């Protein structure tokens, strides 16, 4: 009860503190009024210690005791300024975010820019209860803070609210701020662990692919891609030009053996997430085998092709299927 009240107050504070409607325009500059400062637990202990020293100095009429307390109190004030300065005017821009599969960790890269000609030290960025990422930024430099968040569901995963805090230099006060950069991570469906074999169209086509991949008509060469099977590398062509790129032999036979990954071909007992999961597995299998494949979803149709672009388009379609956020 108390805890939920606390978290609700905290949430209200954060919403007030952010003021703008997230996500925010890049770059986000942590201007003075959005940086907050409060003492840490160590800072409270420090203040309490000063109180006791002051009492002692008063009781024994120690002038130097007074001076000691006042010097340390001044140090506390100076610490507030230094901590505040360590964070204020930091500029945050969204960086790259590589798509991940559901249940993996999405990594949001934030570009932190220090426009001041002094270093910023021990900045910690974190999301809710995750472990913080600690970064230093050299004078007038940029650095990348990778924020890792568990991707639970397919679709667009917006970066959660980021807390940026620092207690440098004395650890007595904590300056912090919130930011919600405009950064989304595309989350693909989780590939099914067990999936039916690739759905070849018709018996003969499947057979010819299995046995006679090499017997198809040679149709040309193109640059080698990582996913191309090694046996399709044009070794002779490579040997001819020593420093040239690897080339892959293309066979016209692939066009006749169409591999369609079809939503409707899956049994009716599967729900849509299961279907997407199986289709994802097929897509990955087909791609790693260097096969060309097409995709049929109720709303989308991808013509057969192979290569990373085809895979990316397919996975993207699956990630966003039915979300309307395409």
């Amino acid at each position, binding site marked *: 009860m108390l805890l939920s009240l606390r978290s609700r107050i905290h949430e209200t504070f954060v919403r007030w503190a952010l003021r703008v409607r997230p996500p925010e325009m890049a770059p986000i500059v942590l201007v003075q009024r959005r940086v907050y400062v409060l003492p840490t637990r160590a800072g409270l202990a420090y203040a309490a210690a000063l109180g006791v020293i002051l009492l002692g100095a008063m009781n024994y009429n120690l002038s130097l005791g007074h001076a*000691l307390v006042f010097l340390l109190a001044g140090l506390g004030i100076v610490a507030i300024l230094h901590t505040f300065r360590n964070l204020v005017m930091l500029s945050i821009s969204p960086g790259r975010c590589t798509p991940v599969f559901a249940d993996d960790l999405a990594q949001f890269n934030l570009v932190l820019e220090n426009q001041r000609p002094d270093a910023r030290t021990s900045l910690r960025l974190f999301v809710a209860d995750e472990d913080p990422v600690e970064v230093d930024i050299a004078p007038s430099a940029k650095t990348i803070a990778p924020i890792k968040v568990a991707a639970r569901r397919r679709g667009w995963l917006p970066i959660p609210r980021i807390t940026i805090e620092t207690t440098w*230099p004395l650890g007595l006060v904590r300056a912090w701020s919130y930011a919600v950069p405009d950064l989304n991570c595309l989350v693909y469906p989780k590939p099914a662990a067990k999936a039916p074999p690739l759905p070849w169209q018709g018996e003969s086509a499947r057979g010819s692919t299995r046995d006679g991949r090499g017997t198809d008509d040679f149709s040309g060469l193109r640059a080698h891609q990582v996913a191309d099977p090694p046996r399709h590398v044009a070794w002779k062509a490579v040997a001819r030009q020593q420093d040239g790129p690897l080339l892959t032999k293309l066979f016209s036979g692939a066009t006749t053996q169409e591999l369609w990954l079809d939503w409707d071909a899956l049994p009716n007992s599967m729900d849509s997430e299961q279907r997407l999961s199986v289709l994802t597995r097929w897509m990955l299998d087909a791609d790693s085998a260097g096969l060309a494949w097409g995709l049929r979803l109720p709303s989308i149709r991808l013509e057969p092709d192979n290569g990373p672009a085809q895979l990316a388009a397919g996975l993207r379609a699956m990630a966003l299927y039915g979300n309307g956020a395409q």
Partner: protein
Amino acid sequence: MARSNRPVSRRQAWWLLASALAASLPLIPQIPTWLVFAAGCAFALRAALTWRQWHLPPRWLLVLLVIAGTVGVFLQYRTIMGRTPGIALLVVFLALKLLELRAARDAVATALLCYFLVLGQFLFTQTIPTALLAALTIVVTTATLLAAADDRPHPQLQLRRSGLMLAQALPFMLLMFLLFPRVEGPLWGLPQDRFSAVSGLSDSMSPGSIAQLSQSDAIAFRVQFKGDVPPQSQLYWRGPVMPAFDGRSWRVTKKRGTYSKVPYKEIGTPVDYELTLEPHGQFWLFALELPGTLPPESSLTSDYQPVARQAVRNRMRYTQRAWPDASAGIDESPSILEEALALPANGNPRTRAIGAGWRAQHGDDSAAILAAAENLFLQQLLIYTLNPPLMGADMVDDFLFDSKRGFCEHFAAAFVYVLRSAGVPARVVAGYQGGEVNPVDGYLVVRQYDAHAWTEAWIAGRGWVRIDPTAISAPSRINSNFAAAVPAGETLPFLARGDLAWLKELRNRLDAVTNGWNQWVLGYNPQRQRDLLASLGLKEPDWRSMTAALSVLCGGVLLGLTAWILRNRLRVDPALAAWRRFTARMAKRGIAWRPWEGPLDFAERAATYAPDRAATYAPDRAGSIREIAGLYARLRYGPAPDATDLKLLKAKIAAFTP
């Protein structure tokens, strides 16, 4: 927070050891030897733990050690309260905390303990060297706090940052020191060990007691006169008055005051001064004769001796006014006169006989008897010496007629005795006579070797009259100083000697610095705070106005420091600044520069744009715009910007009318 659970790194452990050493080394003279040894062992163990990266001792062992240390302190002092036991306990805790550095918060706790121990040093001494040593400890401890938060920087860097932050804290310290509303302590009862034995006059005088003081050049008090320093022979600093005599020693009878203001007429010219009294553990306050005002929290005894309500345990400062020409006790009460006539039943037959003879000759004419007594002292050719021979039971007879050698207490005692035996009320007054002006700061410094004893006789119609019998035989004691009056060859305290002028000069300078420190740093109490603020124009300063002034000034410093700390060193390019002035003026005429627009494009647009057909434009307006934009583009985007171009741009913009 998760951070406070981080383990303490090796570097942090070294830092903590360094600040613990810095905080506890100055305390070695104050804590028992066994504790010095035990703490040293704990420090060494800490060093070994860090060096070898051994495991920390188990917690139960530390708990046992804490208990053992506390019991040890208790057995040593029979208490764990108070100054010395408290400091000893803190040292125990600090030493054992060093063996328990598990997480970052242990490091913070250890650093805070070190700050506490700095206060501990001040309980014992507050001299300038102590302050410097404490400053060093604070710098190291603050560097330790810095290292506890981030241990990566080089130690030298940590020390520099610590020094920088403390330097930035100094203005706050100064303001708070001056303006924080002071409260006069103690807030609660002080344990007795706060005070240790101090030297000074005691409440009784026996032969040799003042001669003993004359070997000390410790300072009794310092005086700053408002006007000129009165002549040396007027500087009688009245101390305890001793009317009671038991045949050997003279004694104070009135320990409490009866008057809350002076009971005699103020005549002549007053002397105003401020006196800073070193603690002497007695109740009386010294004052130039005759005291005309009373320091706060004090009263006057019936023999005109100011006494404080509490023993003088701390350095004390009060302003005073003296009436050198006043006379007191013209209608003295009979009981006091009776007390001033009392003599033991027998002893000193020769002196008594002389007294009885004067009584028979002059009757009630006290003045004549007084003159006879002074004459006797003159005739006897008494010698003022620090080393009088031992006297027998009849001390006064021995001194006046046999050895004829004595120090001021012999002179005073004999004089009072002879007057009393002639029926004239008289008493011994102890105090200080003279003093020496420190040419460096102009303070008159009165030292223990200026201790003196003189007499007062009561004469009808004139009241109490001061007679200094020492002055009769050794006038130089009064007119110059005590060293001049003592025969050559007698041992004198260093500062009383006339030779070694340069050493004395050095000592004078040091003493002036110490006095300034005492007056303005250590002696900055509620009274001095009020005086200072009043002299700065703060009328009737109370805690409200002080707090207000403190907040305002601290806020000002804070703003200044913030501006300095957050100062943006990205200076705007002067060409851009000039261009902005130009575009702002163009915007007023309805053509605003778009941030994404190149300067030449803007110039083209602006030169051909004339919204207000009725308005007359300068004939070369379009040309000027193009010229300005061209200059600006060259300065901003061209290779190697030229200073003359910048000047030209500024001039063109200044001359331009849109």
